[in-house]
């Protein structure tokens, strides 16, 4: 203890020093620079190129690609996959989050689940596809006569749910934590049944957070590429897959302009979704401070 105390006192003068001089926004410069170089700049290039024709002139006609029925099919595929995997992931993840909160707040179970979720929410790509191939694929001996795991969107959704559930746990857990025990006790004292509690108190309180988290999962599934590219390699179902085909097709179908227009469509979808997410988060935050 003595050692710790010395260290703390020793460290204090440095920490207790005055705030460095300079305007407050200086500290955000590295972050904004990073976002600028790796997010805003590439997005700007995509927007710029989407309005250009292959000859280099500017015109809106390249956007007509978005009206093409085959191209609409890729957007429908992306939305189907994102919807199925985000709703399934959100429902299962919410149940898991509730179960974790119901347990001991300092217990091992909670810590293991949170640490596990933090890792698994980032587990995707070719490794995940291959892990599933080994687990449920034709040679696993499991589900051997079922071809549905190669069918779109249910097969690939099953795989996406693997990283959607942990992500849901991470983003939804604070909301469930915010439900005060006293509210439940109060409604029980007033004679409310469990159903009435959820219908009139818990449900409305969690609804904005739940919908917002579902939207986040939706955007997460929308942008995933490597997993589906390994799983459904021979057919393009989603927009990111078709962007890849438009960039590197070696059979004469490569069209950079189409790739930019498809990317523009993705940017628009993500902007809409994330705006909805931000609005819902703001509403959820009113109750869960």
């Amino acid at each position, binding site marked *: 203890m003595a050692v710790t105390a010395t260290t703390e006192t020793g460290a204090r003068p440095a920490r207790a020093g005055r705030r460095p001089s300079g305007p407050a926004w200086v500290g955000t410069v590295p972050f904004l620079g990073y976002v600028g170089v790796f997010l805003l700049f590439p997005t700007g290039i995509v927007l710029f190129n989407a309005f250009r024709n292959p000859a280099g002139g500017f015109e809106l006609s390249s956007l007509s690609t978005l009206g093409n029925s085959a191209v609409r099919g890729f957007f429908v595929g992306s939305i189907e996959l994102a919807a199925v995997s985000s709703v399934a992931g959100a429902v299962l993840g919410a149940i898991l989050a509730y179960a974790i909160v119901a347990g001991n707040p300092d217990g091992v179970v909670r810590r293991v689940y949170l640490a596990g979720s933090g890792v698994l929410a980032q587990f995707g790509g070719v490794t995940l596809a291959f892990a599933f*191939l080994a687990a449920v*694929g034709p040679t696993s001996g499991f589900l051997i006569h079922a071809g549905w795991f190669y069918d779109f969107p249910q097969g690939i959704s099953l795989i996406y749910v693997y990283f959607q559930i942990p992500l849901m746990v991470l983003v939804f857990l604070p909301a469930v934590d915010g439900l005060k025990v006293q509210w439940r006790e109060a409604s029980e004292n007033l004679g409310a049944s469990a159903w009435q509690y959820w219908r009139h108190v818990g449900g409305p309180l969690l609804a904005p957070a739940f919908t917002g988290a579902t939207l986040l999962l939706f955007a997460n599934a929308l942008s995933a590429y490597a997993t589906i590219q390994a799983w459904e390699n021979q057919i393009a179902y989603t927009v990111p897959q078709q962007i890849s085909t438009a960039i590197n097709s070696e059979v004469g179908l490569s069209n950079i302009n189409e790739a930019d227009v498809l990317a523009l469509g993705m940017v628009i979808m993500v902007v809409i979704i994330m705006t909805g997410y931000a609005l819902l988060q703001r509403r959820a935050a009113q109750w869960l401070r």
Partner: protein
Amino acid sequence: MSKLVAAAKKEGTLNVIALPPTWANYGTIIKDFTAKYGIKVNSANPDGTSQDEVNAVKQENGTSAAPDVLDIGQAVALANTSLFAPYKVSTWSNIPTAQKDAGGLWYEDYGGYMAVGYSSKFGTITSLSQLLGSKFKNAVALNGNPTAANAALNGVMMASLAQGGSASSIADGVAFFHKLKAAGNFSPVSATGATIKAGTTPVVFNWDYLNLPSYVGVSNWKVFVPPNAVLGGYYAQAINKNAPHPAAARLWEEFLYSQAATGGQNLWLQGGARPVEQPTMASNGSIDTAAAGKLPAVSGTPVFLSASQAAAAATYLAANWAQAVR
């Protein structure tokens, strides 16, 4: 030739791109080239596509990292001739006229026939229609998406020919894969050496030289070329007109087209690919007969897609492939 060797040695380096070491013996070819001339070979993005090669030429233009030489599919070669420098190797007259650009902008190098590689646990396959049977559940894969990968497009075209179609239309092949999907036998998973070893893609449509047991890395692997559907495909060489190492690039081409026992043509043959000068080499006796004897047997006249046939097939696939196999 000696002046070329001296100039290339002075440059000391050669940039190549999209040459997997296990593909058509490229690992040995690169090693032998370096051993013979003392020129260092930088191999970039070994698993890239032909289009990736052309994209690299454009994006890295003028830098010392730009690719010097390209090994690309026919469609990409024809669409990008403005990027190439003409060059005629000393064995130019041994390349069949139909397999080179008259001006020397590109020249086919090696190729093979579209084949069905399969695990020997299925017994012996003698006809493509067997693949519709129930023992091939979730088993049959192409090498990529046919709207993007040349090998996959040719896989579908081969199925088309086997159904009695002509090279002018790929529709019968798409219909075959539709039936395969309906039977539950089509596997959309990316077929790689790893999935073949794990047994998850036990039947793969691919070029015969990429379907050899030695290439896929499993011993119980057989290759079948349908007798009525011998579809050939060749890659082509081209030199970047702004190559950072122009002499080394030309020396590399001379090495690849050399008919010597240790030259590129026989090295490709030892990798299971059919070198473009093979007919001449068979008649002048310079061919490695042991390696030639190991090539999968084919019967029937090989068919080669013309540029317009390949373009028509790609257009049809762009509109119909995804719907047919969903």
